[in-house]
């Protein structure tokens, strides 16, 4: 589950792994560096329903809180419970063990607004 290959990226610095109608969500290495040490993650409930763009999780670093947004209209089918005890996994392995949740999309997934790895790298560099 590790590595950036084949991932899609949002402007909010989330990565998405799209497999059929399932979407795994995490935040990028760039985002975890900006946020700093994550000390607490407010996770969604299983089966909780979200509309694309809703905040479904909150990452608390020492100094700030950041929302994580639902990538699709859908329900949460998996939650990374490990983050409850080890929120720092988002810092140490953002693309792997630091995944946050898996959504099941309600309809077709529109990837037109998403970036691939190369486009995201450029986007992040410009924001730096």
């Amino acid at each position, binding site marked *: 589950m590790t590595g950036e290959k084949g991932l899609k990226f949002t402007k909010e610095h989330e990565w998405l792994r799209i497999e059929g109608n399932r979407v795994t969500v995490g935040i990028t290495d760039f985002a975890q560096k*900006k946020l*700093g*040490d994550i*000390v*607490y993650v407010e996770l969604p409930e299983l089966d909780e329903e979200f509309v694309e763009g809703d905040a479904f999780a909150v990452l*608390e670093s*020492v*100094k700030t809180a950041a929302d994580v947004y639902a990538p699709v209209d859908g329900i949460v089918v998996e939650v990374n419970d490990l983050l409850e005890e080890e929120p720092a996994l988002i810092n140490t392995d953002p693309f792997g063990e630091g995944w946050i949740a898996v959504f099941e999309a309600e309809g077709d997934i529109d990837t037109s607004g998403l970036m691939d790895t190369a486009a995201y790298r450029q986007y992040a560099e410009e924001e730096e």
Partner: protein
Amino acid sequence: MDNLMRTPLFQEHINAGGQMVDFGGWAMPLKYSGILEEVEAVRSRAGLFDVSHMGEITVAGPQALSWLDTILTNDIRKLADNQVMYAFMCYPHGGVVDDLLVYRHGLQKFLLVVNAANTQKDWDWLTQHKVPGVVLENISPDMGQLAVQGPLAEEILQKLTPYKLEDIGFFRFASPVEIAGIPALVSRTGYTGEDGFEIYCPAADSVRLWQEIMREGKPLGLLPCGLGARDTLRFEAGLPLYGHEISQEITPLEARLGLFVKLKKQADFIGKAALAALKEKGLPRLLAGLTLVEKGVPRAGYPVYNGEGQEVGYVTSGSFAPTINASVANALVAADCAQEGTNLWIGVRQRRLQARVTKLPFYKREAK
């Protein structure tokens, strides 16, 4: 970031991987390696901070002492040469203009060290109330200021000076002291709850001073530390931050800092009557330390509720406190809710998380 003021150390921060943020108009490092790592370094070894953004104002002249006595809440007449005192400047209604350190060079010469974001406001306040026989000078632009904090601070700094640093007691200073050949004022003060020093030097020398301290400190585990660590350290140690625990709207008495407000001193300082009346009448709100019972992180501005669900106050500072491994907050609450052991609830976004009033400070270092 380009329109912000920079300290002489700006490039050093960039070189050290500092993540720069806007802090009251200054480009300052929020963190380098990471806030948790930096806090740990200061608690167990040492950290180096650039605090050159702080304001420095000198007060001189034959009336310096008697005038300062009317401006400051603390008993400045008890201050000896080479001693430092913490005090407030208050408004007539008792709210705080700023909190500051006063250094006494001599009967006719004092140095005030004020908050960066308040420097201009303080300068205006002081010049507006100035009397004949007092000369004020804002020397902030000429001064660099570094803080070396942590149990190894003295050992590290001692490598750079022949001056016996152990002779400088808590809240005392020596000047000039040559640090790496640079003439400096060195005080045993700080904003972290650890032993350590604050070093004032000519702005032009501060880069070299920074590099020398880094060079000596690194092998002993010293890390450069940013504002994030600084705020976390001061918060854990129960030290107030202007604009949070004290402000124009929050008196020092409500913030439980009455120790630095000498209502019995002779001088009729600005705010005295209002603060005396407030104390006489009883304080309607008080600062309380809260420890979260449930998981979450409280932040400044979050509302605080009592058991009946009534809003009784708000969080002034809140954070995960790494040294005690707990989420804690300072909150300004109705006085009858401030007793230790009281259960209160903090509104963290859509949730209300239970917290218990705990003794302040959250962290106190063990005596040597």
